[in-house]
């Protein structure tokens, strides 16, 4: 059997109040008054498609999974930070995946994630388990509809032949140069054509062909589909398309527009992850997405689904959100509002690439060194151990810290340095099982950090070298939050 063997997702903690956006822009764009409802997810200043993809991947893989079984990695995104330098390669290093696998970026259309799934499924037949990650952090102009409709997020899908939780029944693709929107490689935002034309001539005509084809090939009646996934920012277009295709209206899956917005390339897989959390054995899931053509994939849920539950899952990520009413914070994080940094913000963030390569396992993979004699953990690893009175030479073995939790020993929150989201919280973290690292704390509100606070790790942007366009990544600590404990 071939199909989905695992899934995960990630939604940033920050949820921008659409009312705050609409009110701030009301003098200029009063036409959005009706859209002043709900929230949209947006990445913290230190999140991008790479960090969100890593978070979704970890949600899927968990701490104990054997990562050597992953034999291929696809990162689907239309907002990868690097045009050259494999973005999937960075994700692979962060996840400590085997170096001998191929890590591939797939981009160029909103359905890139479904293209990746199709490719991965083909490869999984013979080459072992394949990992598809999809993430987008899309830029839109201030006072645009997209600003309100888009959301940031990521999803992960593990595909293979062992422990299948949703069997792949078939897929259909149309590659058509239907330009509903485009973005040239040096542009910041999309240029989009009239929505009515996209709805009627694009989605209305291309999607039914792909959906019809996959159902016909699989010999499945449209009415048998239990979960119909079709992300769109056009209101009610999913239900309209279901109707056109003969799919039951109660099968239409909530596109989460009210709470997180449309996460672009990631959105179909994010909705799929959400569906898999609740789907029952035997149910049929039809996943479709529109972009430079149309694509549809059909899955049947097996009885193994509960065994592959993600660490948190879409449901838990939704609950962890915290409403942000500061529109200027959102704009600043997107470099759409240039805030005064003071002279401390002038520091050069040039990265020595040779140093990064030499230490990439420590920096990107967060691998410490554990002394084989004393068991003491050293970060970064060193040739000589710190053990008082017994400095052993070359006894340290690789010891990953990313999936371990820790406890805050000491901390502060400072307002002196330039930091994109002050105050900057950092402090000493003692890891379960040994090791201490002075770390930045992220996604924290006042009162979240105290001596003794339990923390878990997040892969984030460390610094941005704006002069040279380079992004530096490392791991940060964030409070372990009990389900349902989010502050709204």
């Amino acid at each position: 059997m071939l199909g989905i063997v695992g899934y995960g997702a990630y939604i940033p903690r920050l949820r921008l109040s659409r009312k705050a956006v609409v009110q701030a822009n009301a003098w200029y764009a009063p036409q959005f008054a009706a859209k002043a409802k709900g929230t949209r997810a947006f990445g913290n200043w230190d999140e991008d498609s790479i960090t969100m993809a890593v978070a979704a991947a970890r949600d899927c893989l968990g701490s104990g999974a054997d990562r050597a079984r992953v034999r291929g990695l696809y990162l689907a995104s239309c907002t990868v930070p690097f045009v050259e330098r494999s973005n999937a390669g960075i994700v692979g290093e962060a996840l400590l995946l085997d170096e001998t696998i191929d890590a591939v970026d797939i981009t160029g259309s909103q359905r890139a994630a479904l293209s990746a799934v199709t490719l991965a499924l083909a490869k999984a037949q013979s080459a072992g388990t394949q990992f598809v990650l999809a993430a987008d952090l899309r830029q839109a102009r201030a006072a645009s509809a997209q600003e309100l409709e888009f959301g940031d997020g990521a999803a992960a899908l593990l595909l293979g032949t062992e422990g299948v939780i949703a069997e792949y029944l078939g897929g259909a693709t149309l590659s058509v140069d239907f330009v509903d929107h485009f973005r040239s490689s040096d542009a910041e935002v999309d240029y989009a054509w009239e929505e009515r034309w996209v709805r009627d001539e694009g989605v209305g005509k291309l999607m039914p062909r792909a959906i019809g084809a996959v159902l016909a090939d699989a010999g499945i009646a449209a009415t048998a589909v239990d979960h119909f996934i079709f992300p769109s920012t056009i209101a009610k277009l999913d239900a309209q398309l279901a109707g056109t295709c003969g799919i039951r209206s109660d099968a239409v899956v909530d596109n989460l527009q009210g709470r997180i917005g449309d996460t672009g390339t990631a959105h179909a897989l994010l909705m799929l992850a959400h569906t898999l959390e609740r789907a029952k054995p035997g149910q049929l899931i039809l996943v479709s997405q529109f972009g430079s053509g149309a694509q549809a994939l059909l899955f049947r849920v097996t009885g193994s689904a509960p065994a592959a539950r993600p660490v948190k899952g879409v449901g838990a990520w939704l609950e962890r959100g915290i409403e942000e009413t500061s529109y200027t914070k959102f704009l600043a994080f997107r470099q759409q509002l240039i805030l005064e940094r003071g002279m401390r913000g002038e520091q050069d963030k040039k990265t020595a690439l040779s140093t990064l390569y030499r230490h990439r396992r420590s920096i990107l993979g967060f691998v410490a060194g554990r002394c084989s004699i004393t068991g003491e953990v050293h970060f970064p690893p060193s040739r000589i151990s710190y053990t008082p009175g017994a400095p052993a030479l070359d006894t340290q073995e690789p010891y990953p810290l990313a999936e371990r939790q820790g406890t805050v020993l000491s901390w502060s929150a400072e307002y002196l340095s330039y930091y994109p989201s002050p105050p900057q919280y950092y402090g000493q973290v003692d890891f379960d099982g040994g090791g201490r690292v002075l770390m930045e704390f992220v996604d924290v509100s006042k009162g979240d950090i105290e001596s003794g606070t339990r923390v878990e790790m997040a892969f984030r942007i460390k610094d941005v070298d704006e002069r040279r366009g380079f992004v530096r990544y490392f791991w940060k600590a964030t409070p372990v939050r009990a389900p349902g404990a989010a502050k709204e």
Partner: protein
Amino acid sequence: MPSGIKDKVVILGMGCSRFGERWDASPEDLMVEAYGEAMADAGIDPKQLDAAWFSTHMSDVGTGRGGLPLSIALRLPNIGVTRVENFCAGGTEAVRGAVYAVASGACDIALALGVEKLKDTGYGGLPVATVGTLVPQWYPNAVAPANFAQLATAYRRKHRVDADTLKRAIAHVSVKSHANGAKNAKAHLRKPITEEQVLAAPIIAEPLGLFDCCGVSDGAAAAIVTRPDIARALGKRDLVAFKALQLSTSNGWEMHSSQWDGSYFHTTRIAAKRAYEEAGIRAPREQVSMLEVHDCFSVTELVTMEDLYLSPEGGAVKDVMDGVFDADGRIPCQIDGGLKCFGHPVGASGVRMLYEMYLQLQHRAGARQLPDPRIGLTHNLGGQPSQNVASVTIVGGLRA
């Protein structure tokens, strides 16, 4: 066991510039100011200097690197000048180099001078420092206030001190230093402050507010050292001798293991023990007359009282509040205003601390002169609580 430094080297002369926002002065001017006073005090000719040790930390914003800036500014007679740098403890390193040179017999008379020009950056606080190519790739973009503020969170937890009590105790530390600094014409900050002002000041790094942080200053200080017999031959009486000079450097244990609890300075404790042993001091709380410690932040001074074994562990809050370290207390601390108010020109601070001990021991400290000091201690720290260099120097009179 090495025989140590006790009574082998004495101070021949010292000088210290006015500290502060010296918009009028280049680092070279500051060096000349401190050197001129020290040479006049020593009563020697530049030709009598055999070697010099030069301390400066932020060379990029001040003098530039190497020994040249000192030699050129002072037009020294082509003697060897060695630049030393050990974070904020560099001043004591310069003294250590000069003292060791004299003690070895390699030099008869040596100069130690520290200088820092911090006010040419265009902004307040310490300049942003570079830290190599690896550290910035994983280490937080840390700043000194937040590094030292963490002492407070760890200390509170360890000794079960509530946040308000500790905040008031460290406020007392700053109020005391401002009272002392007001009496010092060379000090950067000369206004007395109240506890209410300290508690109401804006937060820089939780829980440290503006008045919990020391001044960032321009300044220079110089010491000329020699052997006791040479000093006497030059006509000097009331000699001030080095009793101990100890330095302890972290090796990563505090930073990387989970054994250090974050509430104290491991190195200060080691350096203090070694220094007391070298100086023959068995009961520091009874024997030390006065001290200048590295009060970069108020909380640093508080925990240092325990690390120097002057307060029992967990007892510094009570001692501070009881006024033990006030000017009229049992062990006056920061009589000259300390880093807090005299100011903190990084590379000069260790030498400045010694300057105050020297003046006090020679009864030349003017309005802030203590009645009868016998033993003075300086504690000069560089780095941050989790990894640092800590030096402890003990000076006292030399019996004829």
